[in-house]
C-alpha cells in the first residue's frame, strides 16, 4: 500500500455525479432556454400606425 496522497479536486468533482448533473442541467437551461425565452419576450412588437390603413 503506497502512502496516502490527496486525490485531485478534479477527480473528486468528476466522481460527484450529482454535481455534474447540476452543472449539466443549469448551464444549458440558463444560456440557451432562459436567455432565449427572454429575448423573445422582450423583443419589440411592430404596431400599425393609427388611423385608416394606408
Amino acid at each position, binding site marked *: 500500500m503506497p502512502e496516502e*496522497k490527496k*486525490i*485531485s479536486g*478534479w*477527480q473528486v468533482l468528476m466522481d460527484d455525479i450529482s454535481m455534474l448533473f447540476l452543472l449539466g442541467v443549469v448551464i444549458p437551461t440558463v444560456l440557451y432556454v432562459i436567455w432565449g425565452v427572454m*429575448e*423573445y419576450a422582450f*423583443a*419589440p*412588437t*411592430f*404596431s*400599425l400606425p393609427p388611423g385608416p*390603413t*394606408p
Partner: protein
Amino acid sequence: MPITSPEKYWWKPADKEEKIWISIALLWCLVLTIMMPLMHLIGTQNPSVNPMKIRPQDYRTVSEAFIEKYKVGEEQGIPVVEPPDGADVYLRAQMWTWTPILKLKKGVNYKFHISSVDLMHGFSLMPLVMNFQVVPGHDNILNMTPTSAGTFHIICNEFCGIGHHTMVGKIIVS
C-alpha cells in the same frame, strides 16, 4: 479496462503527444469562435440583427399595402411589384406562394421584411442558395443588395403542408 473501475489516482498529467494534439485543437476552436463576431464586423452576409415581432394579421395588412402601392403588373395571378430604390420590401410567405414577384435593381440596397401569415416556411434563394427561416409572428429583417442581374427563384425549404413542393417565388433583377 473501460468497463472496470480505474486505479485509485487517475488524475495524472497527460503525455506530450496528447498535450500537442489538445493544444492544436483548442487553438482551432478559438479561431472558429472569433470568426463569428469578426464576420459581423467585416463580413457582408449575416443573419438578421434586428429583432421584431409582428402579428400575422398586421403583416398581411402591411404587405398588402406595399403591393398595392408599387404594383406594376400581374403574372399568373401573382402581383408583380417594383419598389423604389432603398424601399422597405415585404415578401410574404403563405401556403403555397411567395407574394409578390419582385422587380429590383442591381446595386441598390433594399430592406427586406420576410414573414409568414400561416405556417413556418423556408426562404431559399436560388441559384445562390441563401436560406432563412420564415416564422409567423416574427419579421426576418434583412438588408439585401442584388449584385448581379437576372432571374432568381425562391423555393420553400420548410415543410408547410401538402403543397409545399409547389411553392416557388421569383425575383427579377435588372
